């Protein structure tokens, strides 16, 4: 049985980091995601675009089982990460979320110090062997989050005392501190000014070297700037998925075209 799993894994591993097949999501009677199948590659940035309420966040939250926390949400279909079905009963969602990090739309640092914010994940997963080790993890995460220079002198001040953009970068640092393999970002820049946005985008580009990044965005320009692949959602359907360049310059579906040119949404 183990062998079978391994064999299957090898096949799936060949191209996709995450592969979703016929995913349907219901909120009570609302059918929010309809038969979505998609393969998300490793070490790429994939952008989810689409009009408001089309299910981008819902689908994103399926990928780390955040929807489990919503009582009325029901997920059907199959989602595999590295060939492993993440909705399999043997999978611990807690472990999964350490591997699939998430950054939310609104910066939500813990009301603790900057240091504790970043150190929390590594601590609960036992990633640090010593205090010095933990210090190093925190520093590396903050550097990755492009916050180290601003935060190094105030590590023990509350994270909630930072500016909005700094808070969002703190949340990114917190998410990367557990060394996830996939990073999900739900409109990470919607609360940020252009300068902070540019910093976060730079960061995303940097993160691509190690992670598979999925970003939901309402900004076409942002999707075009940071992503290699783009998925366009409309009314719960995945309408089109492909190379970012192709989606923006030569969309195959009329709905995609209308959306990018600003006629729907």
């Amino acid at each position, binding site marked *: 049985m183990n062998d079978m799993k391994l064999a299957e894994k090898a096949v799936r591993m060949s191209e996709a980091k995450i592969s979703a097949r016929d995913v349907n999501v219901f909120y009570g009677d609302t059918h929010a995601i309809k038969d979505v199948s998609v393969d998300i590659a490793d070490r790429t940035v994939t952008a989810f675009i689409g009009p408001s309420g089309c299910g981008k966040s819902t689908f994103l939250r399926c990928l780390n089982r955040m929807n489990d926390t919503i009582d009325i949400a029901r997920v059907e279909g199959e989602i595999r990460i590295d060939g492993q079905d993440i909705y399999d009963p043997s999978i611990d969602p807690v472990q999964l979320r350490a591997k699939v990090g998430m950054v939310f739309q609104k910066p939500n640092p813990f009301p603790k110090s900057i240091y504790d914010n970043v150190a929390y994940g590594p601590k*609960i*997963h036992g990633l640090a062997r010593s205090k010095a080790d933990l210090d190093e993890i925190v520093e590396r995460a903050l550097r990755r989050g492009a916050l180290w220079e601003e935060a190094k002198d105030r590590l023990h001040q509350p994270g909630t005392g930072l500016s909005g953009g700094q808070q969002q970068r703190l949340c990114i640092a917190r998410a990367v501190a557990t060394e996830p393999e996939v990073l999900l970002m739900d409109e990470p820049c919607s609360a940020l000014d252009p300068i902070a946005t540019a910093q976060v985008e730079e960061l995303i580009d940097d993160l691509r070297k190690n992670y598979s990044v999925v970003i939901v965005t309402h900004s076409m320009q942002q999707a075009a700037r940071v992503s290699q692949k783009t998925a366009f959602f409309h009314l719960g359907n995945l309408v089109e998925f492909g190379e970012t360049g192709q989606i923006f310059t030569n969309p195959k579906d009329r709905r995609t075209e209308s959306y990018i040119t600003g006629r729907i949404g």
Partner: protein
Amino acid sequence: MTETTPTRGIDWASPETSSRLKARRRRQNRLKYAGMVSIGIAFLMLGILLVSIISSGYSAFVQTHVEIDVFFDPEAIDVDDLPRSNFNAVLAATMQAQFPEVEGTAELRRLTGILSDGARWTIRDLIVENPDLVGETVAVSVPVADTYDQLYKGFIDRETPEQFRRLDDAQIAYFDRLVEEGRVEATFNWALFFNADSRFPELAGLKGAIIGSFYALATCFVLSFPVGIGAAIYLEEFAPRNRFSDLIEVNINNLAAVPSVVFGLLALAVFLGWFGMPRSSPFVGGMTLALMTLPTIIIATRAALKAVPPSIREAALGVGASRHQVVFQHVLPLAMPGILTGTIIGLAQALGETAPLLLIGMNAFITSAPATPFDSSTALPTQIFIWADSPERGFVSRTSAAIMVLLGFLVMMNAVAIYLRNRFQRTW
């Protein structure tokens, strides 16, 4: 090509508009004045309450004492057998020495009646402390009996005809002579806080009631705080939402509205009846109060847990915290100030609760403070109840004084609650 919607010209200066504006302003003012009047009425009521309590209770904080030169007569006092020593005789002799002209046992007894009944315990305590005093003469300050206390405080009208007065002319004359000699003095009534209950108002104090209330509240806290928080956490964070949990929720809310006397009856039947726990004990009182405080704490805790923004839970879940880590490491600490505030308010309610304590016998007449939570005792509200029922003039002011002490404790507890709320309030 495009149609333009014509704008309707509105004349903001027209008479109709300005009269409408005036009417609106009038309505707003009416509301404002109605609000001010209701606040005024509320304050007036509170003012009347406080004035009446303070005006009748302030005098209990002072107690009249008289200084007498006590000769510790070796004839009457046997250091090795204090219970048999005749301290009354010592006091009588002391008064006789003070008023040599008084003759006859009956008249002497009336004279000695100026002193509180507790005077003999005062001098006995002196002997216990220092047996060498026997044979000496020492100036001792002892409380005067309640009627004389009232006289000195001016509550007995000397103009009233003698037969309608509680003290006759001779008694007043004796007392006045002591006053003239500068032996009478009104001092702060420490006995009110450091004595237990007594039949004699001048000796009665709240020590037993305060300690009883303290034990009862401590028991109540120890029982209801962990259980209440545990129940609230389970219901709010872990329990599945279904009919059954809805039923529990409705019942807890109803429980908070059950009249306290019902809890008293329950405690009487269960704690005292079935389990045979000690009657009148603060421990049983605390258990009864815990039944009442529990729903308050559960409701306050659930509200505090609910008030923690979901973004914090998501953040914690997002880095891979388990549900119980989310609750205990993030949600609970943030909800703690709210939980504590609710708990203190629940305990303050319990502190003032009378009916259930009456039913389990905490209105017994007990003249010593409880040493443990299992001894018989009164509590502050039941002590007030007992004193309010006593006919002596001195207990009237002591009742009000006890109410002031109880209110003082309540104000202190609420102040702590407000402090906690302000100190730890967060904005997100």
